[in-house]
């Protein structure tokens, strides 16, 4: 078989194919769909953090003009099962998550009733007429208190509030730390955050009773996962359910889980035989979209006199909120933290223990980085503490401890296998690009002059493109290791490539088209990528965990190869040449060295559908292929971030003076898109480090229910960023791609914390809590000295 022509599109700054529609207001987000006879849903959300529901009286609401129906938890229970996110993890307790509260509410904002009416205005009017009688129960507001004997229990079926526990252990960490030259310890606190996608969550269900088919349009990252679980919960055969996630306004992991409202609109639509739409508002988003990263980590790092790491020990507590989210479970965040804590370093002796604790808060779920923003904050913070005590340069300490070229593949103490990565290279690149020594010297001069200026560094590695060897979340029963592509050339020679992944801003319509066009040797204008629709695509789950470029890209390569091979065989037949002598490029198949002897891909496609008399003997007609790809272990991306910051001595605001990333995401498909992912990731990390925090009071009431309280960074708070690429093609994936959707957010909190600690080093202050609000810094600096 002939090799494809040299790649032309992969690696190029191709402007995105999705942009024209999104720039002209022609995107089609869930709320832009308005089928005839649509009813609009609104949810009554409880003001109580923890209470028994004694009575719900919805009669007055039902009687309002324009109201079609009101459902409560009891109605819902008749029509669907509660969600139970299962896991094979031993110390994990399965609990129920009903679509509408049953018997009791467990967090402020939990939905207790649902109205469907002719407009959202009328639906909200009706909410005011529903009377719910509660018996308030003591709130479980803080994770530390939740485990105390006699603490109120959220899920009676679990027995207590400890929903999961896990440990990774390797070597003899106690012995190693006892014999270490230096042990640094710290209690780190990473507060609660949430994704704040600019498009709030929304769902629109349509049910056709004659055929029994259900169509759900949802702002979902994982249409395949939602389809499968709805079939079970609603008892509808899978092939009669179609889940569509067309244009989605950001996801960042927060839209990767199944939400109660998605189930509820389906139930309502099936009951009423009319389309039912729910579009969340921002208050509902802050109240009831998954939260993230809320952890307390007590950690100790032991080093030898020369800085070599001898052991690492950590205890993690995570506040997983009120429910275990499907399909990832409450384990995803706390277990990822101990999985990834050792980072890109050689560590022989390690023990990480983690606990997931239920409280009266919105459920914890995946958010960009999952577990790793806290893990890297902790590990990089410990390394800087060690460097400071040893009088060593922090980059030198990291360079001494990185997993080296000769160590790959390297099995980490938590069992992850790292393939060839460029830990040392990205560090050296970052040092050079920043001018590390000069920047440090200048910061020291600024400090001598009375300013609080500091320089920080942080390195990390993230597991990406995970195949079937391990589940994305521990023990979860959903297959996350494969994706598929169907590539179909129609008789006119144009190409439709259908994927089970779903794009929600990553530009996958463009990057996958680049991969497919190169593989087939056709112009990108002739390729259309479809995604996010379970009725169109071969089986797939969706987009999460930095997997889509690796898995869908790999499947696209496989399917593209098949189509190319058949194209060449048909062309050879038409040209009376040998397939091996042909090259396909720019939509033409030509005899090598004789560019005038060619047929077009269109000629080939026409022949392919023209029947067997146009085809080589024995060949089946048609020109399409479906292939599945499983990268098995997956691969890894890594980066080093550096930042120069200044803490204002008057206002205690942290200003980022410089920000730099040296990253390696393997073979780059589109530099425009890669840079955009890094920029966006860093901006979220900056928000996490300096501004954003979900706050509940001691009664479990949410205090950050608007965007005036939960502070998403604006263009004025996000710094200009320099992004440098070290391109090490992955040895383990087709195409050499490494996923890279999350990295920016993983590195930014750690590097900002370290830079601020450097700025305040003379005051003896080391950052151990994020976000660094001016108030928090003021208390540390003024209150603490």
């Amino acid at each position, binding site marked *: 078989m002939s090799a494809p022509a040299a790649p032309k599109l992969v690696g190029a700054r191709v402007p*995105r194919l999705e942009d024209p529609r*999104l720039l002209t207001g022609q995107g089609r987000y869930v709320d832009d769909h308005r089928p005839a006879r649509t009813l609009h849903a609104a949810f009554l959300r409880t003001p109580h953090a923890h209470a028994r529901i004694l009575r719900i009286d919805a009669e007055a609401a039902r009687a309002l*003009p324009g109201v079609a129906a009101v459902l409560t938890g009891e109605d819902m229970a008749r029509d669907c099962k509660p969600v139970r996110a299962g896991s094979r993890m031993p110390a994990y307790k399965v609990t129920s998550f009903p679509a509408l509260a049953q018997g009791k509410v467990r967090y402020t904002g939990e939905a207790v009733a649902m109205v469907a009416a002719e407009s959202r205005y009328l639906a909200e009017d009706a909410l005011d007429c529903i009377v719910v009688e509660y018996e308030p129960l003591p709130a479980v507001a803080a994770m530390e208190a939740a485990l105390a004997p006699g603490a109120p229990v959220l899920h009676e079926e679990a027995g207590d509030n400890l929903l999961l526990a896990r440990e990774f252990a390797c070597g003899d960490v106690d012995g190693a730390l006892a014999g270490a030259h230096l042990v640094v310890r710290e209690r780190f606190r990473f507060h609660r955050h949430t994704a704040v996608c*600019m498009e709030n969550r929304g769902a629109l269900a349509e049910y056709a009773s004659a055929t029994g088919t259900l169509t759900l349009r949802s702002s979902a990252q994982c249409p395949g996962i939602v389809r499968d679980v709805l079939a079970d919960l609603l008892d509808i055969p899978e092939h009669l359910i179609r889940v569509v996630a067309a244009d989605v*306004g*950001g996801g*960042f992991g927060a839209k990767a889980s199944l939400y109660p409202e998605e189930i509820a609109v389906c139930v309502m639509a099936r009951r009423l035989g009319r389309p039912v739409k729910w579009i969340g508002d921002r208050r509902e988003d802050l109240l009831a979209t998954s939260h993230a990263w809320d952890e307390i980590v007590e950690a100790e790092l032991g080093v030898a006199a020369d800085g070599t790491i001898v052991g690492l020990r950590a205890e993690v507590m995570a506040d997983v909120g009120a429910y275990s989210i499907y399909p990832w479970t409450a384990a995803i965040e706390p277990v990822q933290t101990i999985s990834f804590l050792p980072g890109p370093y050689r560590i022989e002796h390690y023990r990480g223990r983690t606990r997931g604790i239920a409280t009266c808060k919105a459920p914890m779920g995946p958010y960009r980085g999952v577990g790793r923003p806290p893990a890297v904050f902790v590990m990089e913070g410990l390394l800087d503490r060690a460097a400071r005590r040893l009088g060593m340069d922090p980059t030198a300490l990291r360079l001494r401890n990185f997993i080296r070229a000769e160590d790959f593949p390297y099995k980490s103490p938590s069992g992850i296998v790292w393939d060839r990565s460029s830990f040392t290279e990205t560090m050296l690149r970052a040092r050079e690009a920043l001018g590390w020594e000069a920047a440090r010297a200048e910061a020291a001069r600024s400090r001598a002059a009375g300013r609080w200026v500091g320089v920080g560094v942080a390195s990390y590695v993230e597991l990406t493109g995970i195949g079937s060897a391990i589940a994305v979340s521990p023990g979860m029963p959903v297959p996350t290791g494969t994706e598929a592509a169907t590539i179909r050339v129609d008789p006119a020679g144009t190409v439709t490539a259908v994927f089970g992944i779903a794009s929600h801003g990553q530009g996958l319509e463009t990057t996958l088209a680049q991969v497919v066009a190169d593989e087939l040797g056709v112009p990108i204008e002739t390729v259309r990528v479809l995604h996010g629709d379970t009725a169109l695509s071969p089986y797939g789950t969706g987009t999460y965990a930095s997997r889509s470029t690796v898995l869908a890209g790999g499947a696209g390569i496989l399917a593209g190869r098949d189509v190319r091979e058949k194209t060449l065989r048909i062309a050879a037949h038409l040209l009376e040449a040998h397939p091996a002598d042909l090259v396909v490029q720019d939509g033409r198949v030509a005899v090598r060295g004789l560019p005038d002897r060619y047929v077009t891909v269109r000629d080939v496609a026409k022949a392919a559908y023209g029947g067997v008399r146009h085809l080589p003997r024995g060949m089946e007609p048609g020109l399409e292929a479906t292939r599945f790809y499983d990268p098995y272990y997956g691969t890894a991306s890594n980066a080093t971030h550096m930042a120069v910051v200044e803490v204002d001595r008057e206002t205690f605001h942290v200003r980022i003076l410089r920000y730099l990333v040296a990253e390696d995401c393997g073979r780059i498909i589109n530099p425009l898109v890669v840079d955009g992912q890094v920029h966006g990731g860093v901006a*979220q990390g900056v928000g996490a480090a300096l501004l954003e925090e979900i706050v509940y009071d001691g009664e479990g009431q949410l205090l950050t229910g*608007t965007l005036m309280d939960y502070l998403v960074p*604006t263009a004025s708070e996000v710094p200009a960023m320099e992004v440098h690429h070290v391109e090490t093609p992955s040895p383990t994936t087709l195409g050499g791609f490494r996923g890279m959707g999350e990295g920016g957010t993983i590195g930014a909190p750690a590097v900002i914390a370290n830079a601020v600690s450097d700025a305040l080093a003379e005051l003896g202050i080391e950052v151990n809590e994020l976000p660094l609000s001016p108030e928090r810094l003021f208390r540390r600096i003024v209150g603490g000295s």
Partner: protein
Amino acid sequence: MAEMVTVRLKVNGVAHEGRCEPRKLLVDFLREDLELTGTHIGCEHGICGACTILFNGEAARSCIMLAVQADGSEILTVEGLMQNGTLHPLQEAFREHHGLQCGFCTPGMLMTALDFLKTNPSPTEAEVREGISAVLCRCTGYQGIVNAVRAAARTLGGAAKVESGT
């Protein structure tokens, strides 16, 4: 059912008349009654800027206005930017510089930037950042947007301003 009011206004150069409840938000009127779904809703409390339109020539948040307040007004929405099938130079610049990812903030960002460039045709980077800080974007980290707005300023004819310290 509540009494209905008549709203007459011009959107993207076209005259429209609609009847709605007095409490109806302008953004809902645009999206539902006029079926112009390009204008987005991100917060409904005037912070995110996704719903920004040009109201009688000035950037305004259509989620904190009532439709009745727009009676007799002239409105420009994102749907009105393209002329004769050609992208507006600002839209072109967003595409060229990757100023959008999910596209949800984009309509509000474009309308805000358009208004900003009218009052400041050749801004510095810091001025652009300040100017677009009225709109939240969760995807791009703003870098592509800042580059796009500055490039559009150049195409739209703003002379480069001598920058000091940026």
